[in-house]
């Protein structure tokens, strides 16, 4: 078996083993459904309802993720080109980071209502900091000699940005995207907890009122799958875009 096939096989085998153990434990100890449903119970409640709620959460998370990353990167570019702006605004960004999004969520619902936008905003707030910090780091992490090279050949500020700083920052940007891909889901679900009529967070909340634990499990699993899908796409994108890092490792 190829190494790649093994990389896929092993986690699959372990996950299946765990599910079988779980199923067996529920049977053997005769656990009540509201406490711990067996995987087979959870599978039965998967349906159109779950998928549509998953779609809602994914949409909110993705929109927040995209907006935060665009905004965060642009802010980083401004920071890198203006020290006064960086000095003045960086502490504010840190203050925003240290404020738990859970504490902000009710305020967001008051401001933006119970629709999509309060969840998108929660996602944005939580995704903003990783991209800001990493982009600033990446844009600044240019080798001094590379900067000298561009300056010696009279490269303009724009050329230094476009041909040197930007590509140089990509590995940092991609790792921020990976970090915040799972955070985006957290933001959306937190927003849904506070006030929503759909989405996975809403599903978890409602099923907890009804002690409908299988539904709750299905929603939790769906949230994990959302995160995994985003993370998977970004990892693939990273490999395609930042190909030179892989080359470096091999050398």
């Amino acid at each position, binding site marked *: 078996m190829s190494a790649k096939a093994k990389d896929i096989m092993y986690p699959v085998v372990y996950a299946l083993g765990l599910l079988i153990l779980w199923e067996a434990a529920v049977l053997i100890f005769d656990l009540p459904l509201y406490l711990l449903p067996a995987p087979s119970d959870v599978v039965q409640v998967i349906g159109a309802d779950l998928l549509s709620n998953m779609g809602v959460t994914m949409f909110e998370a993705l929109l927040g993720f995209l907006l935060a990353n665009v905004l965060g990167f642009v802010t980083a570019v401004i920071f890198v080109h203006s020290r006064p702006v960086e000095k003045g605004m960086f502490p504010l960004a840190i203050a925003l980071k240290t404020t738990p999004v859970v504490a902000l969520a009710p305020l967001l619902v008051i401001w933006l209502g119970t629709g999509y936008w309060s969840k998108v905003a929660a996602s944005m707030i939580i995704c903003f900091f990783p991209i800001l910090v990493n982009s600033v780091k990446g844009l600044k992490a240019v080798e001094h000699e590379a900067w*000298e090279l*561009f300056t010696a*050949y009279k490269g303009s500020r724009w050329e230094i940005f476009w041909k040197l700083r930007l*590509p140089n920052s990509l590995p940092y940007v991609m790792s921020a995207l990976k970090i915040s891909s799972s955070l985006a889901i957290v933001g959306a679900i937190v927003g849904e907890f506070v006030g929503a009529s759909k989405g996975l967070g809403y599903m978890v909340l409602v099923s907890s009122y009804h002690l409908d634990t299988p539904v709750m499990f299905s929603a939790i699993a769906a949230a994990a799958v959302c995160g995994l899908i985003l993370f998977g796409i970004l990892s693939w994108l990273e490999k395609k875009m930042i190909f030179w890092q892989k080359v*470096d490792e091999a050398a």
Partner: protein
Amino acid sequence: MTTLGLAETEKSGGPDAASRKPAISIRDCSLTFGDVRVLNRVELDIFQGEFLSILGPSGCGKSTLLRLLLGLLKPDAGGEIVHHGNPDEIGIVFQKPVLMPWLTAIQNIEVPLSIGPMAKMGKAERRAKAEQALELVGLADFRRHFPGQLSGGMQQRIAIARALAAEPSVLLMDEPFGALDEFTREKLNFELLRLWKNPDSSLQTVVMVTHSIQESVIMSDRIVMMSKRPARVEDILAVPLSHPREVEMEELPEFIQTVKELRKRVKDQ
């Protein structure tokens, strides 16, 4: 101070003294960073067509001097860098290759041709110049390779090709082979000398900063010895070896004498 009569043998090595025209003159250049004086009233004429080495202890300010020549740093008031030719016709090679890992070899060579005043150049012309430079360093077969796929020596040759592609008349090199192993270093030393003499390259003048005495002697026409910080020109020695240089010349008495002489001066500092 010299007892070897090195000055007399100068003519056999370097260009004829009478016909020498300066390419760049460094006039009374001092440089101070805060409280630290790095360069102390440096005076030096770099002549057209010569291979000049700047030799000195680590951290003495040799590299700073190169940056002054490149215009990356400005001398303190009173000092002046006079370019007798076109100041844009200067190439630079650093100790590290400083290649962009996301660009192929040929794209890296095109970097200086695609920024600043040369950005106006047509695509085809840019590619042709880059191809020619790649040819000169003997890496034409590696044009599509990324830096990560090339050895340290090959990367440095790409860096040299990048400098040559812009067709400089003066090439500045900051310990260009300092990070390479001894075998690669020796090979590239002679390769560079051949490039310098190659009529297909625009190179006339080479200024190389080094801390290797042997390297400076085998490669250059003249050697500028810098003092400890704050650096000034301690001495200028002409190398009594003819061109083309060969590795066997390292066994000639002239080579050994010059190395000895330089060692002695380093010790006397």
